């Protein structure tokens, strides 16, 4: 204790020259250590972002020099039926898939939170799909499972429900894709479970004394206390959902079919950029995505003030 005290004092009373030297050394060291990230940030993020902003105002096919066309790409987008369809497909996936996935995650987390035994096992078992769900392998399996006479069709047939194959049916591909994302509820569930463990049990005891039932405890204690975690999961899962690619690509053979029902935004962007080589058009799509995701993030933060409760003082 005395040792640290004298050491601390030693630093504080160091002559100004040495402290200035230390500061200079810190600045040099700081930027040296930061160099890998800084290089990556400039060369792989900021630079490309600016150049894609520029490209979005041009006609560019990768082989000839880009020609400036102003806002034409953006105005063309809104006259492009396939683009509008990709927006609709992606939005319905985000709007239905994400809340369902989070609801499943929260429900299972609440169930597991009361477990006295086996919680570790269940947690791992439910988490496993999150690790493999976005892979090509699982997309192939999903496609086989939801095909004509696949196990899903057969299983539903057992209950007298005959939907046929989901893969080839434009009105069933979206439920199939949503099931694929809901299946991966494990990752947000694990985060919810960690959040639930932070809620002091005294709160529930006090509520029980006041005669609160399970529903009132959930509404008045669990949800408010968990709201920062809900917010975190909602934000990340929403942004994540906008970017689904591999599963959609594999399930539709890279075409977004049938009838454009799996033409997700990123898939259409990829097709425009790397099949049609309309790099300017694809860049405009990319920037629209950034703007939409940015606006959604802002909206989330704005509205969060009314329903997210952070412990202690206001931020």
């Amino acid at each position: 204790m005395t040792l640290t005290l004298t050491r601390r004092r030693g630093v504080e009373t160091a002559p100004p020259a040495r402290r200035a030297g230390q500061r200079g050394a810190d600045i040099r060291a700081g930027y040296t250590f930061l160099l890998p990230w800084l290089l990556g940030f400039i060369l792989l993020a900021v630079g490309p972002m600016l150049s894609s902003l520029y490209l979005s105002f041009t006609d560019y096919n990768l082989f000839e020099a880009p020609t400036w066309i102003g806002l034409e790409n953006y105005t063309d987008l809104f006259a492009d039926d396939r683009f509008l369809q990709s927006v609709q497909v992606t939005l319905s996936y985000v709007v239905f898939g994400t809340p369902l996935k989070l609801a499943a995650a929260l429900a299972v987390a609440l169930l597991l939170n009361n477990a006295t035994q086996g919680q570790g096992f269940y947690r791992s078992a439910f988490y496993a799909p999150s690790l493999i769900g976005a892979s090509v392998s699982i997309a192939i399996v999903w496609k086989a499972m939801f095909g004509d006479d696949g196990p899903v069709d057969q299983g539903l047939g057992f209950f007298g429900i005959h939907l046929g194959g989901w893969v080839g049916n434009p009105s069933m591909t979206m439920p199939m894709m949503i099931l694929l994302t809901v299946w991966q509820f494990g990752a947000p569930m694990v985060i919810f479970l960690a959040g639930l463990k932070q809620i002091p049990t005294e709160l529930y005891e006090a509520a029980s004394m006041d005669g609160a039932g399970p529903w009132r405890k959930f509404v008045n204690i669990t949800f408010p206390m968990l709201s920062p975690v809900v917010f975190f999961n909602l934000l990340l899962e929403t942004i994540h959902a906008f970017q689904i690619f591999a599963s959609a690509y594999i399930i539709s053979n890279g075409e977004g079919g049938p009838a454009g029902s799996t033409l997700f935004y990123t898939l259409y962007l990829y097709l425009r950029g790397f099949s049609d080589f309309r790099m300017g058009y694809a860049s405009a799509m990319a920037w629209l995505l950034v703007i939409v995701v940015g606006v959604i993030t802002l909206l989330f933060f704005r509205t969060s003030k009314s329903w997210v409760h952070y412990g202690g003082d206001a931020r």
Partner: protein
Amino acid sequence: MSAPSTVPAAEYSTTAEYNPKPETTLGRTLRSVAFHTAALALVAVVLYPALWMITSSLKPNSEIIGNPALWSENFSLDNFVTALDGIGGVTTAQFFTNSLILAVGSVIGTVLSASVSAYAFARITFPGRSMFFGMMIATLLLPFHVVIIPQYIIFQQLGLVDTYVPLLIGKFLAADAFFVFLMVQFMRNLPRDLDEAARIDGAGHVRIFGSIMLPLMKPALISSSIFAFIWSWNDFLGPLLYLNTPEKYPLPLALRLFVDQTQSSDYGAMIAMSVLALLPVLAFFLVFQRYIVEGVSTQGLKG
């Protein structure tokens, strides 16, 4: 409503009033049985696709579609024999090697670059640090797709398309902010006295980082390595953009090729190859599940 004499009446009565039935042992057992029944049923539903995949890989083609049962009398490894032959004149072993090169490269690059950058954010004071930190956080939320076109153009002009450079360079430049963030958070929780003491003893930042921080960061380095490996192993878009020759394909691209060329004619081999492609991920999960699940719950990492 009479309180047991051992408990002061004033304190206990409020509780007793609203908790009239203390749970009996039988009640607790029943609740536990009900919980485990529900949880196990849910596990069965959730794991069904994975089990179906594994058992289908062992079934003859005729039994895969049109038969939701998991069990078959005709299990064999034939599908795996076909799958190991590979596709397009390239063996599956080659695809495996390619995936491994990319994944190991990603792990090395990520651990090196993210830990060094995280040290700057967490432990060194310099002007611009908080601004850059904010920007780093912003890139966490940035859709990756906004940079793929310019990046492709750059790498194409450098003649680096169809090499592993575009797939690995980002890992060596800490482009995945998740790992930097994870390590910054971890380092901030390490006691500051350690580096102050070392500093008094004359150690510079390089020594403090190398001999004090790195050894203490082992848990963060391990979970980062696991995730860097798995994400690289499963990555599809990157290789799809940059690789053209099948000899260089990692497994996800090989699988796509397999799907394209066989269509639905050989489901068995296709699923067997899907299983092979997931084996390392599943093995990692079984061995490191504690690390993985703990990593997710403390750092909020996405799977």
